[in-house]
């Protein structure tokens, strides 16, 4: 009995010693969690986020770390896979907050995961910034949640105005993904705005499809029979590739207009010639970029061998917003709760961040005020700048 007791003391001392070492070592780093889709529906989105994060991490740590109130802190990024599922995104957010004790979270990217994960971040009082989510609900009435992208109520009218001007459209059709918050919300905003500008019933077909559907022939037959001037597709790039091909099989020769979820480097490998000549609204145009944006693109291209899409650029900006927030906070106390609070206030008080996707200011909902661009997919398969729209 005596022996066991001694053993117990030795182990508890050892345990205490170990944890204090970990705590001591951990004090010098700033932990930021990434809640990103590395597998599932949109793996390329997660990959680009991770690569952009890694690039920034190496850059900052090579300079000795982030300067907060005169002291250098090394950064530590933790990448967790949310499988592009809403329920996994919630679990990952909790894991990052509870187990990894991160000071702030970047992601999730897609609104489908960002809306529920935002709730978790807000309830647990941890700052979160979604690089790519455009659904208003992600940040609405959640003081702890921010984003780096513009909103769908802004993006929808951009698409409508562009189509009215470029296609001289009188009638539109929409095909959206029912199970995807982003797609459904944007489709509804587009429908309302188009009907407002061209009279009720100007959206002649408003069709949806379910999760993991691969055949869209019935919906497309209905759309083509309604004879719209163009089809609006607020969908993920993998579905876009299938829809555009099937529409061409069914004899559709008209225009497609897409939204920011098209802007992925994998779109052209999946879709090929079928997608060329179509337009979509997005956050930045990679072809013909200048200044800091060009530097970012060139560096990414050199490191990873392909042109980064908007999500990589937005992740880069989102991390910079978090870092600016930390610097605004002034110091790291080591008390996670207090630091999170200080960082939230730091982000909210940012006056302006010069990002590579445009300059950002935050309004009271934690949403940035920034411009959108419309790009054309040219014959070389590049995303070419067509128009820029600012609020």
């Amino acid at each position, binding site marked *: 009995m005596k022996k066991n007791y001694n053993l117990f003391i030795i182990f508890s001392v050892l345990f205490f010693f170990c944890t204090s070492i970990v705590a001591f070592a951990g004090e010098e780093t700033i932990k930021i969690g990434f809640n990103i889709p*590395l*597998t*599932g529906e949109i*793996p*390329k989105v997660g*990959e680009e986020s991770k690569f952009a994060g890694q690039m920034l991490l190496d850059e900052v740590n090579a300079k000795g770390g982030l300067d907060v109130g005169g002291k250098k802190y090394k950064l530590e990024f933790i990448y967790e896979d949310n499988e592009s599922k809403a329920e996994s995104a919630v679990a990952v957010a909790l894991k990052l907050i509870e187990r990894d004790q991160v000071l702030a979270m970047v992601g999730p990217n897609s609104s489908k995961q960002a809306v529920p994960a935002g709730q978790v971040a807000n309830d647990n009082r941890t700052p979160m910034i979604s690089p790519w989510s455009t659904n208003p609900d992600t940040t609405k009435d959640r003081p702890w949640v921010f984003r780096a992208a513009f909103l769908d109520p802004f993006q929808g009218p951009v698409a409508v105005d562009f189509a009215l001007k470029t296609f001289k459209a009188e009638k539109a059709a929409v095909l959206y993904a*029912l199970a995807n918050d982003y797609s459904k919300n944007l489709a509804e905003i587009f429908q309302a705005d188009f009907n407002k500008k061209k009279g009720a019933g100007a959206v002649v077909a408003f*069709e*949806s*499809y*379910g*999760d*993991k559907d*691969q*055949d869209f*022939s*019935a*919906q497309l*037959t*209905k759309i083509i*029979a309604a004879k719209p001037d163009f089809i609006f597709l607020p969908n993920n790039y*993998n579905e876009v*590739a*299938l829809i555009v*091909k099937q529409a*061409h*099989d*069914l*004899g559709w020769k008209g225009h497609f207009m897409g939204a920011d979820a098209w802007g992925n480097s*994998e779109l052209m*490998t*999946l879709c*090929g010639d079928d997608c060329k000549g179509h337009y979509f609204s997005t956050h930045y145009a990679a072809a013909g970029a200048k200044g800091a944006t060009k530097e970012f693109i060139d560096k990414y291209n050199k490191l990873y061998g392909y042109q980064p899409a908007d999500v990589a650029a937005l992740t880069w900006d989102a991390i910079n917003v978090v870092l600016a927030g930390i610097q605004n906070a002034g110091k790291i106390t080591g008390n996670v709760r207090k630091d999170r609070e200080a960082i939230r206030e730091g982000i909210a008080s940012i006056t302006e961040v010069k990002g590579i996707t445009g300059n950002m200011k935050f309004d009271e909902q934690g949403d940035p005020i920034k411009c959108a661009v419309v790009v054309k997919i040219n014959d070389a398969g590049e995303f070419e700048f067509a128009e820029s729209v600012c609020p």
Partner: protein
Amino acid sequence: MLDSIIQNLFNALQWGSFYSLIALGYTLVYGVLRLINFAHGDIFMVGAYIAYFIAIFFLKDSMGLSGGTTLALVIPLTMILTAMCGVALERIAYRPLRRKGANRLYVVITALMCGLILENGNLAFLGASRKSFPELIDKVVYNVGMISMTNLKIWVILSSILVYFALNAIISKTKIGMAMRGISYDKFAIPLMGIPIDTIIMFTFILGSSLAGLAGILFAMSYPILDPFMGAIIGWKAFIAAVVGGIGDIKGAFVGGFLLGIVEILVVAVFPSTFRDLIAFSILLLILVIKPTGLFGVAKSTKI
């Protein structure tokens, strides 16, 4: 209006062809073994991936074959390799359980797990990014009035009909087909007649899996984006098609597949597409309530 109905029927025949080809595999295995092979949808996925790798291999510069020749090689090779995959599954997972006389429930659970292993194994080894299937034949769009169809869609429909008649001939005209029907009738008496039951079961898996392989090729050509979970939903739906047709009966699986395709597509054509699965599966439920054994199923007798 008439045009769009005909167009939709054509779409439905094409989509139903895939359900039919996969449902035939479910029904063959069920008919002989009374086993619901839930991994079958994933065997279909494996077939599509095998077709992808073979096609890439032959189209590559070093081989440099034309699309048509490649397709002529892809079809038999994929069917053989997918059949081997199906047989391997039977040898590794199902046969040991059968030898130990395990309850059918355990075998079904094993099948579910095998499906998950195939999906996640694929995810782990090949990564999450999707594969884009190369175009093997030049796509030609025919326009008849307002109806448009492609040569590929016509081939899909024709091959599924052809496969059904070939399968029917094998089951009803050949000796091995007779043995399959025999096992389905009485699993215990048949070995006493000197029929090698394991060989027959293996042959059943070869038939079912090579059909899944063929479906995989046609699917990859029609919907050229492959991902590890592509077989899950279509597999479940094909299973439902097989049950509605009367599981264990190949005519039932064939008709059930087309029926599901037609119901799914016509529901969208008439109602808002938001209600598609809700209405489509309510209709199928109604069919089962009226006729619990399915359209062609017979309660407890020879199946297949």
